[in-house]
């Protein structure tokens, strides 16, 4: 088992905080050299940024260093953060809340935290003074409806629900009608977690969206893909396929309170131009924040 023990040792070293790492990386040196760039790339890869994006980011830093004739290694960090921020902020837009009824559909694979995110989002919108209604569109997973109801009670908003196993499109239909009748400002539609590769389930999602569109022209105004920050490169595939099926307009990045950095959202923004709109940083009701690319880039690099 020499291989494993050696590996373990190596891993313990790398599990050190990014902050420390980047600091030692840039302060412990006098010159910017090839090795430094390589280490920078490694740090990005380990934050799930992805090989190609990491290489391109480092390439961009290299270019800037040449252009600006930078000589101090400590400046690399700032340049890199700048680059990341620039990618993430390009064409940035806040949550699309319209006059009258705004419909937000929340989608994602299993276990990313959709229902929890909806609870937090409902709370956030309510505190902004809006009347919120939830639709319990996850009719598949056992007790998903109950889970949403518990969150709705916490946030003090109402829920439209059917029985488990009901057609989610029918739930969406009823919810839109109810939202109109009750003069609601925001309707948030929950959907069952589904792997993006399941054709039949993605068809189901398309149907939910079609029904909403038909009942309220222009809706849904936002389709949020909830993404678990611990997810690796598969997140790009998730964003692509959910985008094709449901027209994803933004990402809610959850579970950022762990050790994962969620670096894959940089690749998603770059390749698919889907921006991050919210981040989830804890289990409490208030632990949903609007995404700030500067903070995000800083969290990656201290």
């Amino acid at each position, binding site marked *: 088992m020499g291989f494993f023990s050696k*590996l373990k040792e190596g891993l313990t070293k790398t599990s050190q905080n990014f902050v420390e790492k980047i600091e030692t990386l840039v302060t412990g040196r006098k010159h910017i050299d090839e090795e430094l760039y390589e280490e920078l790339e490694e740090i990005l890869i380990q934050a799930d940024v992805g090989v190609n994006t990491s290489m391109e980011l480092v390439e961009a830093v290299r270019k800037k260093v040449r252009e600006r004739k930078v000589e101090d290694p400590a400046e690399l960090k700032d340049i890199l953060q700048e680059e990341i921020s620039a990618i993430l902020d390009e064409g940035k837009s806040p949550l699309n809340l319209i006059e009258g009824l705004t419909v937000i559909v929340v989608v994602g694979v299993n276990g990313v935290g959709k229902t929890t995110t909806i609870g937090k989002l409902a709370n956030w919108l309510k505190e902004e003074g809006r009347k919120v209604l939830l639709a319990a569109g996850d009719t598949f997973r056992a*007790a998903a409806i109950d889970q949403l*109801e518990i969150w709705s009670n916490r946030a003090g908003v109402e829920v439209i629900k059917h029985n488990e196993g009901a057609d989610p499109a029918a739930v969406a239909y009823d919810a839109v009608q109810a939202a109109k009748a009750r003069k609601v400002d925001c309707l948030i539609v929950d959907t069952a977690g589904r792997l993006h*590769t399941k054709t*039949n389930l993605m068809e189901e999602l398309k149907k939910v969206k079609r029904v909403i569109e038909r009942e309220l022209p222009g809706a849904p105004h936002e389709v949020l893909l909830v993404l678990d920050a*611990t*997810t690796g490169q598969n997140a790009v595939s998730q964003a692509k396929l959910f985008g094709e099926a449901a027209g994803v307009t933004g990402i809610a990045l959850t*579970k950022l309170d762990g*050790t994962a*950095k969620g670096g894959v959202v940089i690749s998603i923004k770059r390749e698919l131009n889907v921006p991050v709109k919210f981040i989830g940083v804890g289990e409490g009701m208030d632990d949903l924040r609007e995404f700030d690319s500067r903070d995000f880039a800083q969290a990656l690099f201290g």
Partner: protein
Amino acid sequence: MALFEGLADRLQNAFKKLKGKGKLDESDVSEAMREVRMALLEADVNFKVVKDFVNKVKEKSIGKEVLESLTPGQQVIKIVNDELTELMGGAQAKINLAPKPPTVVMLVGLQGAGKTTTVGKLANLLRKQGRRPLLVAGDIYRPAAIKQLEVLGRQLDIPVFAMGDKQSPVDIAKGALESAQSKGLDLVIIDTAGRLHINEELMDELKNIKAAVNPHEILLVVDAMTGQDAVTVADSFNKELEIDGVILTKLDGDTRGGAALSVKAVTGKPIKFAGMGEKLDALEPFHPDRMASRILGMGDVLSLIEKAQANIDQEQAEKLQKKLRTADFNLEDFLDQMQQMKKLGPLEQILGMIPGLGGKKLKELKDQIDEKEMAHIEAIIKSMTTEERRNPEIIKGSRRKRIAQGSGTKVQDVNKLLKQFEQTREMFKQFAGMEKKMKKGGGLKLPFFK
């Protein structure tokens, strides 16, 4: 970079360069190793694991016997394959059963990994092996987690032990053990609250449960889509709780599953089961060798055969086999087989198990066959006369029109079906050829060797 280019494709590309060469030198090997590194990193294998893996393969590859061999490319591929298999773990590991029942199994893991669902699936699987399970609702924090487990228990007709969300999980676990003993149940599966491993409070709770009930198996549930962080997660759970094994969930997606490699490498603990779908019977024993060959694009014939055995009755299976071998079958058999295939599970999963159908080819086939279309196909075939089903060649213009009307579809759909039928016939021919090869050569060839 194509998004869905799998590890197998990448490795195949990497080795295309080596394949034609008579003799390799060190720089050739380095070039291929760079591709291997990229492929593994894109598959989410942890950075450190990749580094060590590549170094090891490289070391072996630049040895004399490889460089001077007549087929150096094949040698390198073999080394990659062997090392990958080794890294995935040896033979398949089983659950530790207690000498004196009940056996206590505890599932732990991060939020959203799929613990609660897996508790249900695992109970279902082990019940099939003769165990009498009790499910324990130990997640008192997540809203409706207890309810979720109770619903699962009802669906499976397996008893659930719950004490609400006011008792401590330690007391719940203890109570469950007593309950199992008094009811003569021999397997206790404890669901626990999901956590972020940095959360000490909850980690302490797990340690307390462990100390109180002394589980025979602590299984870490890991999402197969996890990225670089998989090693941190696995390492910290293993350090705190000393896990006995891993259950990998959501492997039925298109993730390249690098987390499997990472987790095994960092903990040294075997992956025992894999979650392969939404349904409650979609938990399968994990086969490291099969997984490795699947990652390498070599298909997974063994799983396919096992699935077929479990779902198709013997007589029909023999009939099917005969048809497959001769590739002589008509639309009536096609309908028959479609219904059999349905029993095997989602089509894409089955297709993924067929050797030589990795990557692009698989994607093409998947695009052509849509699960929902099956219903249409059935309607179309049922609108044909017996003669037409037996001799699809006679279905020309006017017959096509009639069939389309009869089945409520369009002529294009009928055309498409007839074309698909031809393709399927081709696919089965491939099956038949494969079978012969297996008999002759004893084992499958690596796809790169073609």
